[in-house]
């Protein structure tokens, strides 16, 4: 399986490991501050809202909207050849934080800003699952 997958795979850091372990279990995990309730992503060990280092990993609803997106017409990596043109988007989750992902299950030219989306887990290898988003 893994041998056939030609795209880049994420290299988790100790800080982001819970995110990737959650994804593998089909749970979209983000961090939530114990002091000010800010939700955040990408992972770090300090709250970007108030500077507290007390936080919990929580499961996000998986619902959000496309804040912005681009459509690749030039191939930068051979692993994407079959999917051209593909959409990379900044998705704003209901919890308020934003996450980079792909929009799937819709033609590239039908994606628009602010459209409602929901998480769709893509088990790209036996070890790695990528949270992606599809129209809600």
């Amino acid at each position: 399986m893994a041998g056939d997958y030609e795209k880049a795979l994420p290299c988790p850091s100790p800080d982001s490991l819970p995110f990737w372990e959650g994804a593998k279990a089909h749970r979209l995990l983000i961090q939530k501050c114990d002091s000010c309730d800010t939700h955040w992503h990408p992972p770090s060990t300090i709250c970007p809202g108030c500077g507290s280092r007390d936080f919990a990993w929580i499961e996000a609803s998986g619902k959000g909207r496309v804040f912005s997106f681009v459509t690749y017409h030039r191939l930068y990596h051979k692993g994407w050849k079959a999917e051209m043109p593909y959409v990379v988007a900044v998705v704003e989750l209901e919890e308020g934080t934003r996450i980079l992902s792909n929009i799937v299950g819709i033609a590239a030219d039908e994606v628009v800003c602010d459209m409602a989306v929901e998480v769709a887990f893509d088990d790209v290898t036996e070890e790695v699952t990528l949270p992606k988003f599809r129209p809600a």
Partner: protein
Amino acid sequence: MVDITPSQRLRDRCAIVGAGASRLGKVPGISSQGLLEEAMKNALDDAGLTTQDVDGLICRGPDEIYTFHQVMGERLGIDANFSTTLTNGGASQVLGVALAAMLIDLGLVSTVLVGFGRNNWSRVHANRDNHMRGSARPQQMEGSEFGPEYGLYGAVAMHGFGARRHMHEYGTTREQFGAISLAFRDHALRNPDAVMKKPLSMQDYLDARLIVDPFGLYDCSLQTDAAGAVVVTSAERAKDLKQRPVLIKGFGSHNNISGWFAGDNMIRTGAVEAGKQAYAMAGVGPDEIDFAQIYDCFTYMVLVQLEDYGFCKKGEGGPFVASGALALDGTLPVNTSGGQLSEAHCEGMLQVVEGVRQLQGIYGPERQVPGAEIGLVSGHGGNTVCESTLILGTA
């Protein structure tokens, strides 16, 4: 955060006394360091100075060369009272000039060489294997996360997110981005050193292949071998030198390092705050700026920075650029050398050089902004969030 009030003490205290560029475009057989030496020599010659007069060095080259300023110092034979390599990406070069002014004011140095050089065209085309990678693909994304695994490659996409959101919020169109490309191409045709030599029509712009939508080929800056450099010293010392000095009237810096994806950073950039600082230090506002050299990695960045520097209202950048304002005879001539979209890509350093030359008044009527006394130069870069601003003026 506490509101800050920039000091006006540095207004007109330092000057740029020489500017130079390397050969531009395809310059096979030269290293990034060699290109920068060419530009630095030209800048020193312009100032009537030599390397022996230099006691400060602020420069940048390929990011993978460790302590680049030390590499350059060894080659130039300079021991510096102060030297460093800045890592604010395309905002570094304008910031380097500002830092030079601060150091001169403090009395730590007297004469600073500021420059950038990179053999971008050669390094990509020397080896076909490198071609797919492209120069725009940040090295730090290799083996990383929250990017490459989703097919995010290149600065083009990061800036494209901003462009797309701006189009959504304000109705900005690709034709309006195109007006920027066309204006700069017209300027390049007046510049014999510019890489792009052919006229560009709106139809050419719209028909060109898409790279990363909403950006097509002509929304993207060039891939060139290029270097630029300037010499900075005190306004007092400048009086005794060869060139008509170009005064540093004000500068500013603001970096939205909370990230491009945070808040409205992608449609309201660091230029808002950096511009406020620079205007306050210089004691002028946007209405008094005779021309601007705006960092143009992609067309959209010109449009949004023009809004953020107050040349038009937020959201009205599209109609503003489409009005013909950016032309040499427009209300605000912008990127009068052709910019990075049509002259050469030098991470903003050539925009400093062009700003200086316009204020030195060296051009013939085909290129000179008539009566130019005050110009604004912007630098933008890093991971799309760093902004530096210079306001320059005649003595």
